């Protein structure tokens, strides 16, 4: 315990310094972890409501926000890692803000967003009581090399969870990991209702591991199912036709099918955690208040007209984003970097179809790989008005030339960070890491 206290003190000091300098969400965690590698276990081990890990390729940040909102609306105090730094060090950094030197956070339950590899590292330190498994898609193969490998990581996470696993019934990579779940651990499923099952192929990766094609089983009475009402509103059904209850209709602040699936996943986990305390009306109200995380469909009021910032990380995510926004075409810019956090290989752009942009065209491509993006669009016969690799010049020009009209920027992670910083200066927005939770 002495060691934990020392680690927390060292981490808190680093955090104070880092905050003053305005950055570095993982560094304080790194320092604390160096002083006491078991700090996580000590600090989180005793939470009465358990430790929930949210993992998968797409939607972790949004789903985590929604789950936290759902639990808080039901009166629970929740510890979470809200800055989107989904590595163990990010968790420790977040923890440092909320614990005393004895190392116990004042919370009922922890809800943590962790990427697939770090979720396992985390499980080495602390056994998660619950895991919410979203999906497996191709993402930053530099780091994970193959999606089969990513699927294995999630299956291992499921196998190491002690109380309950909630998983995506429509994703074969995820659903197949049910086999490894320990006996006595509950398994709940979320997915989409029959009415939109035809849209699943645009969301799912091809699973080539086994000969038999994955067939989604008929929904069980306790499965949590998404039924969209229109582009922004949805209902969440318990069992087919909502025989076990219905949450909603709810209008989300974020648009599109991906956000709706995230809401469904979060609701399934909240229902498992809360049991009989779960209240459909409370849940619907909570989901309606959740705002988009930074850069993930975030709408910025830029000189009186909306500017949407849409993070794109991989083919599945970009495809869903294009179909989400396809019905309301506006002036568009696409910014592609190839730093480590973006994925250094830009090949993935060829696994996305850009045909929906053909009619309005793209005003500007930007980022380190601006010309590669323009070339990609050319092969889908999407007109590209101009190319400006420098992000800040591109943003200035894009805002100037849009004549007060709504506009949208699709961007990779580090491009988003640069653009978001510029926009924060310009429009006086909260900076990264200062986001209210």
């Amino acid at each position, binding site marked *: 315990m002495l060691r934990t206290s020392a680690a927390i003190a060292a981490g808190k000091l680093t955090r104070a310094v880092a905050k003053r300098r305005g950055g570095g969400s993982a560094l304080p965690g790194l320092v604390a972890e160096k002083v006491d590698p078991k700090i996580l276990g000590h600090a989180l081990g005793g939470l009465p409501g358990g430790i929930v890990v949210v993992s998968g390729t797409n939607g972790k940040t949004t789903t985590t926000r929604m789950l936290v909102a759902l639990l808080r609306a039901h009166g629970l105090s929740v510890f979470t890692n809200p800055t989107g730094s989904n590595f163990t060090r990010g968790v420790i950094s977040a923890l440092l803000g909320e614990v005393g030197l004895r190392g116990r956070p004042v919370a009922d339950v922890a809800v943590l967003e962790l990427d697939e590899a770090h979720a396992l590292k985390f499980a080495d330190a602390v056994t998660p009581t619950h895991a919410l498994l979203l999906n497996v898609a191709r993402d930053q193969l530099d780091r994970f090399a193959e999606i089969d490998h990513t699927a294995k990581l999630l299956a291992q996470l499921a196998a190491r969870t002690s109380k309950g696993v909630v998983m995506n019934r429509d994703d074969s990579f995820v659903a197949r990991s049910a086999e490894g779940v320990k006996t006595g651990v509950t398994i709940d499923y979320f997915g989409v209702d029959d009415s939109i099952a035809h849209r699943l192929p645009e969301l799912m990766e091809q699973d080539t591991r086994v000969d038999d094609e994955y067939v989604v089983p008929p929904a069980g009475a306790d499965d949590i199912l998404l039924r969209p009402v229109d582009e922004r509103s949805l209902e969440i059904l318990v069992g087919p036709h909502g025989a076990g209850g219905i949450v909603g209709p709810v209008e989300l602040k974020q648009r599109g099918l991906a956000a709706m699936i995230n809401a469904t996943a979060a609701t399934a986990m909240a229902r498992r955690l809360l049991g009989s305390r779960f209240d459909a009306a409370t849940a619907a109200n909570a989901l309606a208040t959740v705002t988009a995380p930074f850069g993930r469909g975030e709408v910025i009021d830029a000189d009186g007209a909306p500017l949407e910032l849409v993070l794109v990380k991989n083919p599945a995510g970009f495809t869903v984003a294009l179909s989400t926004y396809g019905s309301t075409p506006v002036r568009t810019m696409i910014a592609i970097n190839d730093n480590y956090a973006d994925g250094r290989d830009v090949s993935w752009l*060829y696994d996305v179809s850009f045909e929906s942009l053909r009619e309005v065209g793209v005003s500007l491509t930007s980022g380190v790989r601006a010309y590669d993006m323009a070339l990609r669009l050319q092969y889908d016969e999407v007109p590209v008005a101009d190319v400006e690799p420098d992000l800040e010049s591109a943003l200035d020009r894009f805002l100037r030339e849009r004549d007060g009209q709504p506009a949208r920027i699709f961007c990779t992670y580090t491009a988003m960070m640069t653009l978001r910083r510029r926009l924060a200066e310009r429009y006086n927005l909260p900076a990264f890491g200062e986001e209210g939770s």
Partner: protein
Amino acid sequence: MSKGEIHVVHLYPREMSIYGDLGNTRTMTARLARHGYTPVLHQHHPGAAFPDQAHLVLGGGGQDSGQARVEADLEVIAPRLRSLAAAGTPMLMICGMYQLFGKAFVTVEGKRLPGLGILDVTTQGNPKRMIGPVVLSTDFGDVVGYENHSGSTTLGADQAAFGRVRSGFGNNGEDGSEGARTGNVFGTYLHGPILPANPVFADALLSYAVPLATGAPFEPGDLDDTFAEEARTRQVRRLVS
């Protein structure tokens, strides 16, 4: 009026195209159309009959699981691929398919799996992956792409390489060679995908394919490759200084 029909065969688009290699096929059909030809695309899946006409054959990279699922079919269509190759049909095989077009793949455990043997290369399974952006010097100028492979490939004594590595690992990270070329058959580790980013190489493949289909030499149209040239030369400048 069309200058002629060119049949393009994409081998195993479902199992072997995880790194955007579909972009190569898209590039070839689009460029054929822009040059004034009529592309006819055949997607060849395991178990299906190989198309009667094939003037250009493309194959991509896959995961180990995908590779395992195409091996049986590859054995069935092997005689056809060998005779097409001997007749000068251009073929471009990326990564996993490059390895399968070689003589053998030796797993980390030492198990020797025979390949098609159209290219005289042998690949040794390797615990370490070779990952990163690549610049090559080739017969078609500087070629850019992205490699991501764990296999380490060695050329046979008389086997020509596709290019020399200017930046990156190449076949094995040691001898400076990248890929292989025998006649009009090319194997390479380069994703990116390689063809949209390197239009000179793309059109060279078309110039081999067209006479097989029409009996007349390739008559290129006037294509605007400004974006591709900018993208390519910027990568070369970034990586080779």
